[in-house]
């Protein structure tokens, strides 16, 4: 069994196709994405118009400047003038702070306007009895650029972050502040942070389905399986060694993705890394079973590869590898939610972005498990080890 496993590992690493799908293909994705400078659009260049000029507004502006990638320009007092700059995407001078907390100036494109209206942070207004938070800022931004990681959302989240702290400091949690971009708590999440769990999930799926399908189909096509069944070796041992080989490969793949994500994309993974490995480990089985089905339904290795593309392509685009499924039309979303990659990606993102625990992603894991069982049963039913 050990010899069988070693042979299987040896073969996998000598097989350029397997190495390509497991390592090179997802790595290419990460590297290509690193060429698009999402980082640039993520940094917020804010024109601040402080009509309130209170202690609190000043404090917030100072705090904003402390964030990485945030630049502030305070040269405007007229909102309409500032809006023209935003609409024309004009480049003006912003003040940034570097890592040593020294201020420096840089020319950049305006992407958000932050307006503190008169009376913002004026403590006397706290006497009013309305439920509405008394202090409201106004954010202006380019709607076309309203992705999850758009500058306006970044600013909104930073504001939430700052004002939460001030809330706690002065009124022990009573909510005094709000922004009109309210509600969306994105905790400094950037596009890459969303993308990385997606690409990890895609990598597991691709390597699992295509890897298993092409390996098994080629053994079938070349009658290696038949040759093996003429020996006393129980065929399950052979399949098991293939599966273990794949799990080793997959673990290496996830490691490579995590390293590239961190050092090439500078993406953040907030949650537990061991938990991500665990999810990936369990995620493998459903795709291996699907790959097995593809191998069973195909006569040649090439046909199996094509069929596994048919299985994996819809998941790649619908399950939300590159974006979250929220933006899909309802009907499509309903179908997309049913695909086996979807709960895996949800779980990976929940852990990676929101630091979810194993218990919190139990529903997703359960769906993955059900999928695994279903596809395993189908695989066993359709695959014939012995000819008639």
């Amino acid at each position, binding site marked *: 069994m050990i*010899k*069988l496993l070693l*042979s299987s590992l*040896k*073969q*996998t690493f*000598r*097989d350029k196709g397997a190495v390509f799908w497991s390592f090179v293909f997802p790595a290419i994705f990460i590297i290509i994405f690193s060429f698009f400078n999402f980082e640039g659009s993520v940094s917020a260049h804010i024109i601040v118009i402080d009509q309130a000029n209170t202690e609190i507004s000043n404090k917030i502006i100072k705090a904003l400047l402390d964030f990485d990638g945030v630049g502030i320009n305070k040269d405007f007092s007229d909102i309409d003038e500032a809006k023209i700059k935003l609409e024309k995407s004009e480049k003006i001078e912003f003040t940034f702070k570097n890592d040593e907390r020294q201020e420096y100036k840089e020319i950049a494109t305006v992407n958000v306007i932050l307006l503190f209206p008169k009376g913002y942070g004026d403590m006397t207004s706290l006497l009013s009895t309305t439920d509405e938070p008394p202090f409201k800022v106004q954010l202006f931004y380019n709607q076309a650029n309203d992705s999850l990681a758009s500058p306006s959302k970044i600013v909104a989240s930073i504001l939430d972050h700052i004002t939460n702290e001030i809330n706690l400091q002065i009124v022990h949690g009573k909510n005094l502040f709000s922004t009109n971009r309210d509600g969306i708590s994105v905790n400094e999440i950037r596009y890459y942070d969303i993308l990385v769990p997606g690409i990890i999930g895609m990598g597991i799926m691709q390597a699992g389905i295509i890897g298993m399908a092409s390996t098994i189909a*080629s053994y079938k096509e*070349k*009658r*290696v399986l*038949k*040759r093996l*069944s*003429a*020996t*006393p*070796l*129980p065929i399950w041992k052979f399949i098991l060694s293939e599966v273990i080989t794949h799990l080793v490969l997959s673990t290496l793949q996830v490691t490579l993705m995590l390293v590239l994500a961190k050092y090439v994309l500078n993406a953040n993974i907030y949650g537990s890394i061991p938990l991500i490995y665990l999810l990936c480990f369990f995620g493998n089985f459903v795709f291996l079973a699907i790959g097995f089905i593809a191998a069973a339904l195909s006569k040649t290795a090439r046909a199996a590869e094509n069929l596994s593309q048919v299985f994996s392509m819809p998941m790649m685009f619908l399950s939300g590898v590159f974006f979250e499924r929220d933006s899909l039309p309802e009907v499509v979303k309903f179908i997309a939610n049913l695909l086996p990659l979807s709960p895996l990606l949800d779980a990976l993102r929940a852990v990676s972005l929101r630091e979810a625990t194993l218990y919190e992603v139990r529903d997703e894991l359960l769906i993955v498990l059900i999928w695994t069982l279903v596809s395993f049963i189908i695989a066993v039913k359709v695959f014939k080890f*012995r*000819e*008639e």
Partner: protein
Amino acid sequence: MKQYYETMKKIALKVENLIKKYNGLMAVDNISFEVYKGEIFGILGPNGAGKTTTLEIIEGLRIATDGQIILDNVKMRHGIKKSMQEKIGVQLQSSSYFDYLTLYEILDLFGSFYSRRIYPLELLKLVKLEERKDSLVKNLSGGQAQRFSIVASIVNDPEIVFLDEPTTGLDPQIRRSIWDLIREINKKEKTIIMTTHYMEEAEELCDRVAIMDSGKIIALDSPHNLVNKLDLKFTIKFITYKKMSDEQKRDFGNHKLVIKFWEEKEKYVFRIEDPTKINDILNWLEKKGIKFKNLEILPPNLEDVFLKLTGKSLRE
């Protein structure tokens, strides 16, 4: 051959009333035979006769519809058990081995499946491939790959070796080298059961031959007995210096000893029952002033046996 007579009658394998039906079609139609220890047993027949199906049932790769196999006093219905595969060696028709393992690694891996084994280098030496132990199968020539495939079937030092059309698709010279290899393996006291659709191969190599057609065994004996038992004719071919005239041909065809007469390109061919009477024919030709050369006298062969038994040619 000598060895075969000495150990004769010790039965290595017995097949009883084997039946394989595919959707109502009889691929193997109630066949029974015995294979003796140490012999090379051939199953000869055209494509689709049921040779491979029979072999694969015995090897445990297919399940028989009915019938039983007896190996080492163990009776097994429908085909042999996994545990009995320890004792047999299998070479499949057109199957290949792992693409990314070297010859040495493949033999080492396959050997690890068995409790008894021959070491890879020893096996490679037998087929003169020890120099190529680190090559992949895809880099071997057709003959080398076939030699490897055959030697891989004896990794477990089996009692019985099954070879399914071991020389199909190889050119004649390589075919001869494979025959030598099979004889060499046979000398190591291994019983060999092989299928073929080449009658020369069966004649040259096999101690006994089962002739199979449409799922049935229609004859089983040594090649010599098969030919002798049937009342078969000799074939004689010759070339004349001057073409025979139509009248000469008609007269020749009507000669009382000539059974059948026809032309093959420049050759004249006829069949004769008793080859000792050939002189009468030659005298007749001389008397008619027909000068000839390149006289060939061909004894009847398995091809003729097959033709006689089934009314069709093996090659069809």
